[in-house]
């Protein structure tokens, strides 16, 4: 069995185990009447059809019309929303990552810029995106930006931070002797950057890009709400959340589709990483997780 089949099998195994845990917990709750077996201690989450719909009900809801009398099944609607959200997220990811990378280069070249700007960069991430999104949307609207672009800006706002931090770290990673070596060849600052620092930073950059990918999806979903968009996953989630009590499985289904979009996006980044960074150069980086 090669490495690839093994990882696919283990992935499927985990999905299957999670499904068994979900349904098993539900079955246990139904049998005991909502308590841990042989006790009167209540289960933390109720197991009725509203709190925890059966997985097959969630799956089934995907193939039924989303609205009474509607033409499109839920899956089509969610995929359409997901595609819309993904485009904003991908745009924000690209712009945000490029900006973060540029910021990393600026900081490594100028300690004055780093000292002066870093606090603001950090502060930008402590402000919840829910607060910042309406502001960006109002500014974007004033500038006449299309709504999808406004959403992309919010996605970029979340994506740039991990990339900036890890780029900076990666650019600083070469050993002092390596820097001295290039100095001894009278390398220009640009040559130092592109022949030593940037290649050395690549293994640090990709873990950050993976985080930026998920962050940009979150940014896009959250950003869609104040932008007042009628399309997109954020809108869909909000809609199904309000009808949660009557059709909980639709909300769960849209959460699952959102998660899937994130996983696919990260997979896409990992695919690029595989072709750019050889396996022996990958580093594990505990990159800072941005706040959504």
């Amino acid at each position, binding site marked *: 069995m090669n490495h690839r089949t093994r990882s696919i099998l283990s992935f499927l195994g985990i999905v299957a185990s999670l499904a068994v845990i979900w349904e098993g917990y539900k079955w246990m709750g139904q049998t005991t009447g909502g308590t841990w077996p042989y006790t009167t201690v209540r289960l933390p989450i109720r197991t009725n059809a509203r709190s925890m719909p059966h997985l097959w009900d969630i799956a089934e809801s995907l193939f039924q019309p989303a609205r009474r009398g509607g033409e499109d099944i839920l899956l089509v609607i969610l995929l359409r929303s997901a595609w819309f959200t993904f485009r904003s997220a991908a745009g924000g990811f690209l712009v945000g990552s490029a900006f973060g990378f540029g910021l990393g280069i600026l900081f490594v070249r100028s300690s004055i810029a780093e000292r002066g700007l870093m606090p603001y960069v950090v502060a930008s991430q402590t402000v919840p995106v829910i607060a910042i999104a309406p502001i960006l949307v109002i500014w974007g609207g004033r500038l006449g930006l299309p709504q999808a672009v406004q959403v992309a800006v919010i996605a970029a706002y979340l994506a740039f931070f991990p990339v900036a931090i890890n780029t900076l770290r990666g650019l600083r990673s070469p*050993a002092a*002797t*390596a820097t*001295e*070596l*290039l*100095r*001894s*060849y*009278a*390398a220009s600052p640009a*040559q130092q950057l592109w*022949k*030593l620092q940037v*290649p*050395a930073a*690549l293994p640090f950059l990709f873990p950050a890009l993976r985080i930026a990918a998920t962050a940009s999806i979150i940014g896009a979903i959250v950003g869609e709400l104040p932008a007042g968009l009628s399309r997109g996953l954020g809108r869909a989630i909000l809609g199904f959340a309000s009808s949660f009590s009557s059709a909980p499985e639709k909300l769960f289904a849209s959460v699952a589709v959102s998660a899937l979009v994130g996983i696919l996006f990260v997979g896409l980044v990992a695919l690029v990483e595989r072709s750019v960074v*050889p396996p*022996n*150069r990958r580093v594990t980086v505990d990159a800072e997780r941005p706040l959504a």
Partner: protein
Amino acid sequence: MTPTISLDNVSMVFGSGTDAVKALEDIDLAVQPGEFVSLIGPSGCGKSTMLRVIGDLISPTEGIPHVNGKSPHQARLDRDYGMVFQSATLLDWRTVLENVALPLEIMGVDRPERDATGRRMLDLVQLDGFANHYPWQLSGGMQQRVSIARALSFQPSILLMDEPFGALDEMTRERMQMELLRIWEETETTVLFVTHSIAEAVFLSTRVIVMSPRPGRIVDHIDIDLPQPRGFDTREHQRFFELITVVREALRAIENESP
């Protein structure tokens, strides 16, 4: 004849005030073209600092170094130095050949020429056949040979070597010493070599400079009058042992001086 390297009254102080550490004091040194000079002394005697002053990695607080009749800064811009450190410092995303050709790439030499030169250098250190390997696929000794090939690739007139064989095992070390001597003869470079090993200094050098610590000072010049070219039988030469004793006694004299 202008010396390749000359230091006149060079001093180097790190830090200031009460924390100031005098790393080098009143260093006078002249190295003639084609010499192989070793710097030896206990830790903290400033031998690496001296190498870094000459290589323009740091500027001395006092005194004027000259390299090929120029300032070290100008000599660096003219690419007069090839440097080899204790760690091979190869770039692990580049193949062996790309590592060797890195200085040429920085100098703007075009690809066919730098590949050809790189391959010639790999021949010189007997690593032909490893051009397309990556550094992590090589042993420590082979990596250090690559770093020597890299230092020689642009034909610098001076090789500055900071304990280049310090991390190697005894067998590899002796083989590398032989190779270095062969390369030194073939390329006619001037070598300044920092080491901790008395035997290594005596075996390789035309002159050994003994330094004392705190502050770093030159206390002795010992001419190594062993016949050239040196070979495996040099280590069994009567004179070899005599000179080792001379260097050892010079080093012991320092120890007795300092409390």
